[in-house]
């Protein structure tokens, strides 16, 4: 039978289904996260408070976890699956395995999510209002940690899935360069494997056993350092898929070609080797870590600006190429020749523009001593709503308008609503983020339900606190409206019938292609080895020193909030499960050997 279109779903119907599931999980998290976002915006600014301030932190935990764990990661496993299957032009090796990791991620995040949301009711003693950083001795319910572990293991298996595809493909195409999208997926996943070792250690060795009552205490500085070992590179885990979209999709929708495939590879290699040995820049103001280690982390961090700055050039040059092919001229006049009416293009372009603005606050955050000015103030929140909250989130929403038809086989419900949506996000974020940055400079703290104090007031040299609050609230409302438009489009598209008039599943060609890239760039083993060596350099001494000072399990401290009854039950269940799993997996084999 002949199909009219060459959309992704036509070539890979089974994979399209997995990607759809991942996208819908992602959008569900985005919807929840958005609701919590506007609640906390209105609460903090004092415009509308209908929850108890003590519950604010449950809202904030949900906002953080649902948006930066579920929304971003579910979306990116979707586009990574697309990238690998499309660029290798082969389906996944084993569909059951693919559904397996998706299922594990879904179960994991459900456990964590339920643990968080249970904090709203007194009906259970379960809660995990520990924010997405879960710093000990704040303690969440074991289900929260367990869920995170399963979720992360799910992503590990997803990576295995993509590596399997690549190995199989390499067997058949021994002399070919790794196609760029696959190259990007593989380097990102290698980075992710190294990065998640930190959080896995923190949870499995310390926090989970501690929350189950198996160990008495933990060393707060140690678990915190392990968290940031993971916490910085995780931002690149969100960002690299967005970069991938800017490299492989944006040039195409601009009407041009990717300016340089080799440089794109260099950029992803730099991310692989530099993302992890920088986490201590989140701990510039932590006691117990020597200044020298902080300085090293800063140097690495500053050099990590390089791949982003290079990306800026390559991506803009690719857009310009499109504009010139479309007849654009002049130093700046070419900008007018870009397809500004296309939401996919405009969303990504605005996301990139906001990311450029984020470069400004990012360089300040990266600086070691200037961190005294901004650490944990609202400035930081302003910063990451530009990065993950826009560069990533808006890119993901914009490319959804391209992907949704590809994986559903249905035409987009409304292009103009889509265009309005991305522009509205840009405007809303401009208000919200700008005011957050300014408020932070006055010392307004982040993560605070009522940043209005009895004993003093924040003083603004220009404008007033009231004006900043108003801008934040306005921005938050515009962002929420933008989300409403986004979901209208997702649902509207879902209700459309199948269309056989969809664009083909293609990504951008290159001006300077892989043949110009030195072979060594594709040597993933080499880059992984270098990455590991750098991590060992950056972290061995700080970790040894922390353990030496505070002990592996730290001082005597009470967990906070103190342990809960259902913990014992769960401890039992986990033990049972673990033993069961061991028995079914390794024991038969082991017994065989013994016999």
């Amino acid at each position, binding site marked *: 039978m002949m199909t009219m279109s060459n959309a992704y779903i036509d070539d890979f119907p089974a994979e399209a289904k997995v990607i759809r599931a991942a996208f819908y999980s992602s959008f569900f998290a985005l919807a929840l996260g958005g609701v919590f976002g506007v609640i906390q915006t209105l609460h903090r600014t004092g415009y509308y408070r209908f929850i108890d301030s003590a519950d604010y932190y449950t809202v904030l935990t949900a906002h953080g976890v649902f948006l930066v764990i579920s929304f971003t990661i579910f979306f990116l496993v979707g586009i990574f699956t697309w990238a690998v299957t499309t660029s290798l032009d082969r389906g996944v090796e084993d569909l059951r395995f693919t559904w397996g990791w998706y299922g594990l991620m879904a179960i994991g995040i459900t456990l964590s999510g339920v643990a968080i949301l249970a904090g709203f009711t007194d009906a259970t003693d379960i809660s995990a209002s520990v924010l997405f950083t879960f710093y000990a001795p*704040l303690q969440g319910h074991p289900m929260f940690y367990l869920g995170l572990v399963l979720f992360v293991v799910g992503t590990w298996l997803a990576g295995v899935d993509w590596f399997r595809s690549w190995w199989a493909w390499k067997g058949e195409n021994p002399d070919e360069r790794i196609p760029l999208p696959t190259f990007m997926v593989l380097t990102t996943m290698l980075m992710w494997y190294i990065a998640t070792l930190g959080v896995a250690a923190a949870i499995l060795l310390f926090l989970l056993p501690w929350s189950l009552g198996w160990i008495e205490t933990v060393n707060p500085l140690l678990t915190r350092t392990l968290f940031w070992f993971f916490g910085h590179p995780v931002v690149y885990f969100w960002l690299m898929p967005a970069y991938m979209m800017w490299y492989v999709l944006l040039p195409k929708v601009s009407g041009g070609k990717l300016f340089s495939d080799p440089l794109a590879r260099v950029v992803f290699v730099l991310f692989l080797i530099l993302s992890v040995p920088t986490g201590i820049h989140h701990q510039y103001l932590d006691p117990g870590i020597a200044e020298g280690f902080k300085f090293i982390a800063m140097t690495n961090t*500053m050099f990590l600006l390089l791949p982003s700055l290079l990306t800026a050039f390559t991506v803009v040059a690719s857009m310009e190429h499109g504009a010139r092919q479309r007849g654009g001229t002049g130093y700046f006049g070419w900008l007018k020749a870009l397809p500004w009416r296309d939401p996919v293009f405009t969303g990504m372009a605005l996301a990139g523009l906001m990311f450029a603005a984020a470069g400004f606050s990012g360089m300040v955050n990266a600086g070691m001593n200037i961190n005294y000015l901004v650490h944990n103030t609202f400035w930081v929140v302003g910063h990451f709503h530009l990065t993950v909250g826009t560069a990533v989130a808006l890119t993901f929403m914009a490319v959804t308008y391209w992907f949704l038809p590809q994986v559903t086989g249905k035409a987009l419900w409304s292009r103009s609503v889509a265009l309005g949506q991305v522009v509205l996000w840009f405007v809303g974020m401009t208000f919200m983020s700008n005011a957050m940055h300014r408020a932070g400079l006055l010392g307004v703290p982040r993560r605070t339900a009522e940043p209005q104090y009895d004993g003093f007031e924040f003083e603004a040299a220009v404008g007033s606190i009231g004006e900043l609050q108003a801008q934040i609230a306005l921005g938050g409302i515009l962002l929420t409206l933008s989300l409403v438009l986004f979901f209208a489009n997702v649902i509207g598209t879902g209700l459309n019938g199948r269309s056989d008039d969809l664009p083909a599943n293609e990504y951008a060609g290159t001006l300077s292609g892989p043949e110009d890239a030195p072979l060594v760039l594709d040597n993933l083993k080499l880059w992984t080895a270098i990455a590991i060596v750098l991590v060992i350099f950056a972290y061995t001494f700080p970790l040894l020193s922390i353990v030496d000072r505070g002990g592996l399990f730290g001082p005597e401290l009470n967990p906070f909030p103190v342990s809960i009854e259902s913990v014992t039950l769960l401890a039992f269940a986990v033990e049972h499960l673990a033993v069961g799993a061991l028995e079914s997996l390794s024991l038969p084999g082991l017994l065989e050997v013994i016999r």
Partner: protein
Amino acid sequence: MNIHTYEKVWLIAALVLIVGFIATVTYGSVGLGIAMIDDSEETVEPGELGEDERFADPRVEQVGENEYEAYVVAQTFMFSPDPIEVPAGSEVTFYVTSRDVIHSFSVAGTNINTMVIPGEVATMTVEFDEPGEYGVVCNEYCGSGHHNMEGQLHVVEEDEFDMTELSVEADDEVETGDEATIDVAVENRMLEELETTVTLEIDGETFGEDVTVAGGETETTTFTVDTADLGEGDHDWTVTVDDYEDSGTLTVVDELEEEDDDDE
């Protein structure tokens, strides 16, 4: 690999930016002496701060002519001491630790900002040139009452600053004709000598005595009051030393309780 000339230009410009950033921060550290919170302090047991020499009694101490140390404890959901009071024109080193979870100690509108981690002691040396009143906030989530965690830092005019502590011990009830004693202990926690006057006011009459208290010492002044002059009834008294004041009531009675009678 062929890289376009413009992209090479940008690569170099980007490196210049990066090196420029690092150079600026290094200049701040080395040239201006801005220090980071570090690992210079030994760890402490958060559960045993009550026995810790520095943190059992959170306070400000003078350690040199214009040098002070502030021992600050953060806990859910307060800072102590509160307010923290230091003189202008001084150099203050803050030692901050936590009794329970992770907090921060952040002086709003300044660059005084540190994480406070249980088991660790954060130190920050700061010069206060001008008097002023600052709010202190905790900017790390520490539990359901986090938003109520605040304190005050008062930098007072140098000549209005002292670390004098006044404690008065006075008779409550005396028999007419007996003498009532009021012991006034003036503690001077500064290093320099304190010259001041202790005044007692009782029933509108004022007595004064000049005292000199050496640095770190306590001097006790005793006032004796002849109750015959006061007469029976309640007499309010007030002791004043500089800005400090203590007051109470002395009751002069005809005869004291029976038990006392039995003794005689």
